[in-house]
């Protein structure tokens, strides 16, 4: 995947449990092919105050507000993980193109295996503007990150756009080595008794099975729009979901909300399910089925 050799195509989704080295290590021990950190910024952020997550039918709505200890602080965690032989993808964000570059440099020097540029968090848009809604900005950020990156650069896109292919092509032009599709859909939960929004941030990001059809469609469309590999993300709960993503054009998958029910071994279970699917259907490796549904 984008120059990386992973033992299997599963990862945790950014922001899901990636706040410390021991938790990320447990995800790896749970069977993931690589682990993804919480999105890291320059300065430390405390995130939004509670309620920050509530389940809705078919999924969860969250507005954590990108809490993170700051990229510099996290360097040691990355070193610890690398010391234990865990492949690490560092997710990160910035408030400006310069910050994106600076953070990328810090993380890159810490020795991560790949960088995942988060231009798509729906929960801090008012503070920082959702860069990922604009092709020009996406291209510029990608370029800036590529300038300093020593490892592959993955750009994570938002589904909250009119034409995701346009943004994917911008990332590709900017030099992205891969694309992660997608981040959460912007949603809202209101309580009829309290007569107010449930989340402190008012809106939040919809993840889980409810997101799956939209995310799968995004992967499908991006696969037809760019040449670089795609990491599928959104509502994957079992190996069947994961295979659907691979068939639609993803080379690997990230799994987030399903860890709520499934726990840490969900990564291994899904990886094993994919393997069995390949065997039963006479395929040798994951890449043999990537995008296969487009042929039908």
């Amino acid at each position, binding site marked *: 995947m984008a120059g990386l050799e992973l033992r299997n195509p599963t990862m945790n989704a950014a922001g899901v449990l990636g706040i410390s080295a021991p938790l990320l290590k447990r995800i790896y021990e749970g069977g993931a092919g690589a682990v993804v950190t919480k999105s890291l910024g320059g300065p430390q952020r405390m995130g939004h105050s509670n309620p920050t*997550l509530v389940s809705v039918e078919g999924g969860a709505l969250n507005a954590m507000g990108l809490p993170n200890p700051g990229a510099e602080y996290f360097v040691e965690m990355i070193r610890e993980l690398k010391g234990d032989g865990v492949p690490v993808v560092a997710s990160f964000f910035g408030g400006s193109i310069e910050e994106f570059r600076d953070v990328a440099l810090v993380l890159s020097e810490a020795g991560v295996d790949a960088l995942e540029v988060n231009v798509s968090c729906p929960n801090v848009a008012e503070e920082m503007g959702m860069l990922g809604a604009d092709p020009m900005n996406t291209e510029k950020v990608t370029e800036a990150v590529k300038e300093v990156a020593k490892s592959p650069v993955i750009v994570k896109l938002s589904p909250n756009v009119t034409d995701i292919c346009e943004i994917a092509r911008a990332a590709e032009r900017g030099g992205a080595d891969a694309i992660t599709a997608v981040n959460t859909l912007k949603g809202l939960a209101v309580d009829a008794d309290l007569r107010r929004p449930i989340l402190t941030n008012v809106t939040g990001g919809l993840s889980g099975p409810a997101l799956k059809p939209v995310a799968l469609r995004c992967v499908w469309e991006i696969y037809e729009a760019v040449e670089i590999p795609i990491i599928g993300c959104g509502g994957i709960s079992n190996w069947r979901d994961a295979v659907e993503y691979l068939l639609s054009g993803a080379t690997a998958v990230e799994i987030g909300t399903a860890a709520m029910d499934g726990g840490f071994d969900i990564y291994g279970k899904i990886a094993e399910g994919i393997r069995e699917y390949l065997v039963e259907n006479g395929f040798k490796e994951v890449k043999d089925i990537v995008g296969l549904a487009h042929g039908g």
Partner: protein
Amino acid sequence: MSDWRTEAEAMRVVRLTKVKEEAGDMRSLHFADERCSEGVPGQYVMIWNPAAEEVPMSLASIGEDGNVSVVVRPVGESTEALCGMSAGDKIGLRGPFGNGYVVQGSSPLLVAGGTGAASLRPLAEEMVAEGLKPTFILGARSKDQLLMTESLVSLLGENLLTTTDDGSHGYRGYASTYADQLMKEKKYDMIYTCGPEIMMAAVFQVAEERGIPMQASLDRYIKCAVGLCGSCGLGPYRVCKDGPVFSSEQLREVRNEFGKSRMDPSGRAIKVDH
């Protein structure tokens, strides 16, 4: 399609049926909720006064009739907002969450500090109902801070032992020292503890010295409560989901964090100071 509003992770809204003054300036908040009444001792709810933040609180009573309660110590904005509520007010609820205590052995010692008594009381009730005779150390800084003594005495009689830092009631000194002393006199085969982490760490040390297994209910920064965000991380564990109750084995695994450091909401390590 399933009615997600009955899922633990969805926000439910209920009215408080009663708010009672407890020791010090603590308050018990009572409400009816079927899911909570099916909870087990050691589990907690995310409780929300919509004027403030949603925070974790242990179930302090778990009635089979659907009535439950939590006991809140006002230590900051959200707990003060909760303590200021009245019967009839609406709260948001998620949960119950977490693993809860597991009743094991035949001779249990319970060590509660401060609001830690909240989660240990329903455990003691369960034990009594099962025919066990738990010893219950109730600790506080001073006499007026001793929580729920009345209901605990009526449940446990002389097996309720109190200790205060200032000696204003019962034993004078730390609950851990008192526990150590009791362990000399009687052979306990499981220790359950909930309270300030420094206290629990001290109890753990004496338990380890004597080779007695322990279950401790830990406190970390809870945001999502469903095991997704990682903010409650304790070594490889999520306090919100793998905990809040941890076994001696697990405590050994996280010995360089337990009683020593915790993450602040950003994920930076800070000192455990109480």
